[in-house]
């Protein structure tokens, strides 16, 4: 697809340094190995989609990127900084990485606007007024301008997830991580969230997205990665990934997904 090739060329031209570098990463939960020898680079401006059956380690992998989970072996390097136990200012690093969760995780005791401005005021030291300005801007972007003073419990799932995306955007991160953002939504609300994510993608936001939404992957991704049992099994651009899957496991997975 023309758009994908174009953005790949742009990414390579502008920035040879990977924003996120994952090298030989292994992780265990006690005796169970959840990540096996993962190697992955994400460049600024790229949209990477990770798919796979449940238990494949895809959520664990992206949670390692902002160190919500710790890897035991291998290197994870964000913007040139290696993530280890000794890393100073993990909070500062995390503020450059935005994340959206399957369960939205909005702060229930705060209004929508308060949710958005909490981190910019505390972490970026912005004034209340400036933070609200930014908040209003991103609320408009996700199309929920008139809900600023509502509480999360008063919103639908789709609206809550859009607020969550706005909240992540208010920190103006270098990359957005999505952990199955639409999996907990009713079908009719999935589209409104995917629309926003597509819009962000066309505006050049670097994204790493774990999702089952293959239509979205086809349209938006520069690269699609298939993970199974803790390993990266296949990696390709969307056209080749969906039309010519090389690995048997990928083929089986795609068959199951599309037969639904």
């Amino acid at each position, binding site marked *: 697809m023309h758009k994908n090739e174009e953005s790949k060329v742009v990414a390579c031209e502008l920035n040879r340094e990977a924003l996120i570098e994952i090298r030989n990463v292994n992780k265990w939960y006690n005796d169970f190995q959840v990540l096996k020898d993962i190697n992955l680079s994400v460049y600024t401006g790229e949209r990477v989609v990770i798919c796979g059956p449940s238990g494949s380690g895809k959520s664990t992998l992206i949670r390692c990127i*902002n160190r*919500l989970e710790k890897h035991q072996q291998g290197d994870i390097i964000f913007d040139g900084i290696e993530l280890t136990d000794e890393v100073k200012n993990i*909070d*500062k*690093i*995390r*503020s*450059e*990485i*935005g*994340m959206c*969760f399957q*369960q*939205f*995780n*909005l*702060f*229930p*005791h705060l209004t929508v606007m308060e949710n958005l401005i*909490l*981190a910019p005021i*505390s*972490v970026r030291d912005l004034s209340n007024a400036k933070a609200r300005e930014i908040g209003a801007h991103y609320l408009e972007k996700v199309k929920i301008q008139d809900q600023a003073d509502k509480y999360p419990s008063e919103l639908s799932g789709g609206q809550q997830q859009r607020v*969550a995306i706005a*909240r*992540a955007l208010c*920190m103006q991160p270098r990359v957005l991580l999505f952990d199955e953002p639409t999996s907990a939504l009713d079908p009719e609300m999935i589209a409104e969230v995917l629309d926003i994510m597509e819009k962000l993608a066309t505006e050049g936001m670097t994204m790493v997205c774990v999702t089952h939404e293959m239509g979205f992957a086809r349209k938006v991704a520069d690269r699609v990665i298939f993970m199974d049992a803790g390993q990266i099994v296949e990696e390709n651009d969307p056209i080749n990934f969906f039309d010519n899957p090389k690995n048997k496991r990928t083929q089986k997975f795609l068959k199951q997904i599309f037969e639904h």
Partner: protein
Amino acid sequence: MTFDYMAIWDNRDILIDGVLTTLLVSTIAIPIGICIGVVICMMRISGNRMLRWSSIVYIEFLRNIPFLILIFLVFYALPFYGLRLSGLTTGFICLSIYGGAYFAEIFRGGIQSVSKGQFDASKALGLKYGFYMRRVIFPQLYQYIIPPGTNIALTMIKESSLLSMITVAELTYAAHDVNGRTFTPVETFATIALLYWLISTIFLKLTHILQIKFGAEDTRDDLTIR
């Protein structure tokens, strides 16, 4: 059998002083106990092994022995090690640290009840630990800690009656005093029961206001069998 009201009325001063002392001890020990509970709880969940271990020792010791034995230890045994405290001081200290152990566990239970996703989102935004505990987690704790917390506070008010055993002139001590003078156990202890009941009821009414303010009322329609 006639109820000798006059025996009680004539000695009302002693009983009123008793009520005031009970209230004094409780009103001071409960807030201090809550503060101790917060500190111990933070130690209990900290990453530091020494802090965690110390807090566990503290909680286990104070929760697993009777309050009466605790006050005997402090009042009667400590003097042998050079520390002689008055009954009232012993009462303040023991009631506070005893409550503190229970409050610590209640707070810990509350923190664990807040969904993990709240911690994930806070960390993902780059919020610092102290900041997000205060602004994200603690505000969500009230609904979990107010009901058991008021229970412990109420227990502390009633446990204060044991301080009568170490010469503190609170309400139970006053009861024994009046009974000793008038030989009217029925009237005396019935009155004491009523007075404790009044103290507790007023306390619960106040905490109910607190519950409503923090949205922690325990009124759920789906729990009633109809």
